[in-house]
């Protein structure tokens, strides 16, 4: 896409750059600071270099948490992206009562504080006071996310998809709405099928919003904390202890800022790596934004 070569672009981005840089640098320095020291108490610390990093990387439970996390995020993306796009395609395009109703309903799950989401699903899946729990019970199945790791995962996935698919759908919908009608008109004249329209017009034109959706969902699911913590507390056992939950266990439970700092940095770098890979891949799928 054509751009104007002009360094005055920096003026435009200056406010954003300053605010974000300021908010990011201080914590970053703090974390780096913690990660290379052994802190006994206030003001008493010893420089230990990369020891915490090595210890953290050797931690078996960290590896397990990482695999669980990767599986979780992978499932999330596989389910939410197609589902969200599908919903967006089904949504009414014209202004009016139908569109308004659908938009508001769709957005509702996104607006609930995350600790409340966990609580809702605890209740919802309980066989004594929850609708879904009772319904499953009535079908003769036993379903207990506090006892079975598999059931815990199923509940978590249901909760997660229920909670976040609307985000993908809303982004995809807004992207679809931005396609000028002339494209559909030209496709009609060219005799294109619905599938061709989706593949050659809609999907490419949604690339921007879908990149955002993909990156957001990956990041947020990879960093997830409140919802699974409230629902399962990381259990039963360790079955739903994802990375964030494990990190907090170390930092708060064991109150060890050094390893926590090192872990945080590693955590960040993992997310960064994946995001970078996704970003580059999506950039190149369409021949590049900046071509």
């Amino acid at each position, binding site marked *: 896409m054509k751009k104007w070569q002009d360094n005055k672009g920096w003026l435009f981005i200056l406010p954003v750059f300053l605010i974000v840089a300021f908010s990011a640098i201080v914590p970053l320095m703090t974390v780096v600071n913690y990660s290379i020291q052994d802190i006994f108490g206030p003001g008493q610390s010893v420089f230990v270099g990369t020891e915490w990093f090595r210890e953290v990387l050797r931690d078996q439970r960290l590896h397990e948490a990482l695999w669980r996390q990767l599986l979780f995020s992978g499932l999330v993306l596989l389910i939410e992206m197609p589902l969200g796009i599908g919903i967006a395609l089904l949504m009414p395009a014209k202004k009016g009562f139908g569109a308004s109703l659908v938009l508001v309903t769709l957005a509702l799950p996104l607006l609930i504080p995350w600790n409340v989401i966990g609580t809702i699903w605890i209740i919802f899946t309980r066989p004594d006071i929850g609708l879904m729990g009772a319904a499953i019970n009535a079908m003769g199945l036993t379903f207990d996310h506090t006892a079975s790791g598999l059931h815990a995962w199923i509940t978590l996935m249901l909760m997660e998809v229920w909670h976040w698919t609307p985000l993908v759908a809303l982004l995809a919908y807004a992207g679809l709405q931005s396609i000028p009608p*002339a494209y559909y*008109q*030209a496709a009609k*004249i*060219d*005799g*294109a099928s619905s599938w061709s329209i989706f593949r*050659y*017009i809609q999907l490419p034109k949604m690339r921007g919003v879908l990149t955002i959706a993909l990156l957001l969902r990956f990041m947020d699911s990879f960093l997830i904390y409140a919802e699974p913590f409230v629902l399962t507390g990381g259990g039963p056992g360790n079955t739903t202890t994802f990375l964030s939950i494990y990190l907090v266990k170390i930092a708060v439970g064991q109150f060890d800022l050094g390893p926590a700092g090192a872990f945080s940095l590693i955590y960040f770098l993992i997310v960064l790596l994946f995001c970078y890979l996704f970003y580059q891949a999506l950039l190149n799928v369409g021949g590049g934004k900046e*071509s």
Partner: protein
Amino acid sequence: MAQINLDEIAHSYLPDVQKEDEYALKRIHNIWDDGGAYALLGPSGCGKTTLLNIISGLLKPSSGRVKFGDIDVTDLPPEKRNIAQVFQFPVLYDTMTVFNNLAFPLKNRGFDKEYIDKRVREVAQILELEPFLNKRAEGLGADAKQKISLGRGLVREDVAAILFDEPLTVIDPQLKWELRCKLKEIHEKLQLTLIYVTHDQVEALTFADKIIVMYEGWIVQVGTPQELFEYPNHKFVGYFIGSPGMNFIPCTMEGDQIKVGDALIPVDKKTAALAKAAKGKLEMGIRPLYLKVSQSPDEEGFDVPVTGVEDQGSHRIISVDFQGFTLKARIAENDPIPESTARICFSKEWIRLFADEKLLK
């Protein structure tokens, strides 16, 4: 398709329409001959894109029928009519190469590979797109993209008419000229009917054999550029065509002469008779080109004060005050510019009279 026949077409975008002014198209009844180059000219909002979309089938008219030759196509969708449409901005399949873009309409209609290859190369040659065939459509300039849009219409051998909706809007000025020439070339070579929507009269005048002037949902006049220039049927046409447009002054008849304020302007007998018989508000119209600025004081005319001069490059326009009305006259490049007064002459053969904004003839 022998010709395009618009039979009592009217269209409103509103569901429950009551009043005439809620119609985007009020009454369109027109026949377009096969193979002609037509321009639909008019200001923003006059209904020209609506009409274009009705012809192409993207829009179904509220009332009336559209016929191609003897076949009533009103209920046919665009892909079943033999038309192609080029839009205001390039509409392409970005992820495909130029070749695949051009091939797309044919692939959808089930033609075999060899035929498609042949046709695509033929069209690419006509449009000078051959060097780009294997490149992604996305990275090309606006003019190349519009050519590709045009190409998708040309590849289909069954296409008999191509409709253009202000296609040169996003093209750089120097490339506009090249594209216009290319369109004319295609028209001569392929003998397709071309219908070109624009609000730019220069484009219309250079492109079309016949211009259809539209205003507020009506067809105001159909004619060659010359007809529109010399005999505008309606005050709007006189005003819209020509840069600057026609001068209009309210007047009355006194005997066989036109009276404006204190001045009497002689006019030919036939026009005078029409004017005397006419009912309604009488106005005189004369184009700046034909409002002669005389160099000799002996020529029959009026001495009037000059109120302004504009330099248009190849000629100049002076504004004068005649009986309280401002008139514009055109001065050729080499003629001297009058300083404070000018002598204007109303050439009889170019005076037009309008009653209630309609031409008397």
